[in-house]
């Protein structure tokens, strides 16, 4: 009777502990979830429409956000190849995001989930992802450290906040031994080596892996890999972008003769006042 009550207590009050124990006992395979975002190619000339209230999509080439692809996705695939497991990619976005999802599948993810909603508020996106994670049994959720369009660094931490899972930000390496993970992460003024057990959420930074180019076999295989489309749950959107502008152009460069570097020093001191 006592055992039963305490088991029940655990069941009701410590769902994440339960989850962990289950994995330890049954030696199940690792399930990785990699969150990918769509971003304009880095060479994009940024412009706006509708009286500078909307980003101009016209002729923009979209890619998988580099941090998501090069580091989070590739590291998950490497670990799966080494230790076994599954890699699912998840994107919150409209149907035309399938091109980038297929690319992630071509690089080596097993399957994909697309949550059919506009990803225009980070807390909204994170609550969609957290809801999906709750309905599955993922061990590690990987995000890129930020997107190169809105540079938010938000979604990973928010998912962790919603799930009450530990958040490891700016991870530059990830190794696994059973359900114990060893990570390197960047901190103010250096980096540190940490250890924790699954489940957790991480944001991946440079160093975690090297970008991979999908090969022909991967591209062929990606065509038939499943993309599950799910409807969003209701969640509030707390932020919006009301307008955009381009930064002020520089007024033009002042050239200094290479023979007179002291002239540059003088300008930096007396005109720009920065030294």
């Amino acid at each position, binding site marked *: 009777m006592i055992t039963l009550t305490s088991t029940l207590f655990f069941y009701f009050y410590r769902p994440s502990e339960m989850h962990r124990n289950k994995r330890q006992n049954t030696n199940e395979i690792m399930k990785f979830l990699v969150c990918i975002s769509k971003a304009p190619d*880095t*060479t994009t000339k*940024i412009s*706006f429409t509708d009286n500078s209230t909307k980003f101009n999509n016209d002729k923009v080439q979209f890619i998988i956000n*580099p*941090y998501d692809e090069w580091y989070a996705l590739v590291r998950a695939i490497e670990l799966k190849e080494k230790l076994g497991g599954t890699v699912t990619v998840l994107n919150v976005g409209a149907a035309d995001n399938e091109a980038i999802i297929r690319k992630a599948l071509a690089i080596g993810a097993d399957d994909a989930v697309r949550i059919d909603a506009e990803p225009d508020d*980070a*807390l909204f996106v*994170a609550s969609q992802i*957290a809801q999906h994670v709750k309905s599955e049994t993922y061990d590690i959720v990987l995000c890129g450290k930020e997107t*190169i369009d*809105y*540079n938010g*660094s*938000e*979604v*990973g*931490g*928010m998912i*962790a*906040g919603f799930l009450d899972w530990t*958040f490891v930000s*700016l991870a530059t390496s990830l190794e696994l031994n059973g359900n114990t993970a*060893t990570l390197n992460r*960047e*901190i*103010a*003024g*250096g*980096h*540190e*080596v*940490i*250890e924790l*057990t699954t489940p*957790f959420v991480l944001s991946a930074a*440079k160093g975690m892996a090297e970008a991979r180019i999908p090969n022909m076999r991967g591209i062929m295989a990606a065509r038939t890999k499943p993309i599950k489309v799910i409807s969003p749950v209701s969640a509030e959107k*707390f*932020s*919006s*972008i*009301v*307008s*955009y*502008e*381009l930064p002020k152009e*520089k007024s033009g*460069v*002042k*050239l*200094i003769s*290479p023979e007179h*570097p002291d002239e*540059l020093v003088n*300008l*930096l*001191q007396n005109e*720009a006042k*920065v*030294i």
Partner: protein
Amino acid sequence: MSVLVFVESTNGSFKKSAFEAVSYGARIAAQIGTEAHAVALENIPDDMLKSLGEYGASKVCSIKNDSLKNFDANVFASVINDIAAKLSATIVIFSMSYSGKAIAPVLAAKMNAGMVPGAIDLPKWEGSEMKVNKNVFSGKAIATYALHSEKKIICLTPNTVAAEKTENKSSVESIDVTVPVSKITVKEVVKAGGKISLTDADIVVSAGRGMKGPENWGMIEEMANILGAATACSRPVADIHWRPHEEHVGQTGLTVRPNLYIAIGISGAIQHLAGVNGSKVIVVINKDPEAPFFKAADYGIVGDAFEVVPKLNEAFKKFKSAV
């Protein structure tokens, strides 16, 4: 209602960005007719905590607890959440730094708060709706964000809104909160030995592939030493391991916005500019007068770095010894 500012410290002292955040929070509090309080989670001497009052904090709370020695975003978010509730704070301010980036989103989920990750100026208000500007597309554009939520989190981009001293005096209070146990074990901490951190530096000396090889970085480091600057590099330089990848700046590396950015032997590709064009003053040294970087520069020298940089270093040295 009040404004709470998380002040970041490293090894027991505050960085410039901490004073900027307090001053920013105090000015927002004044906008909406309330007070700003500051919270530090490291073991900091009281007189240093008091110094935050000069930037407008009414109360400065510190929590001296050994469990906060190691950084854990969830633990910090939980503690800040409790303090925010105790002080009825509806706006929480962070600096957009390593720890701010990690704690703020966890807290946003816990508080159910809307968030602006990287404000660059003071907000404007229309009723309870707040609007503030933020850099987007890695500095290629600026967007005005509106927050409609009752609770709000703003991460302030360092070196965008200067700290202002006030006549204000603050009281230091210790606050009682439960500190949850961290699930992270820290095995090893590696400090970037005495070097000036790139994202905090007022001056950055950066070099690219034009330097021909890692053996030629002596003159770059010398310039950084003379000026008290941090060193940075372009992406290919980090990719071919001439320099550590922590120095890689640009759209896929660090974003920096120092007062002075000196670019030597860097062409100025769009991806590089994206991470550095928030710098107040840009100096470009390149032997190719057509290098695109000159278009984004304030001052330029067209010339061979191997000739120009040693001469410029002499001129900087002369200037430094004169002041």
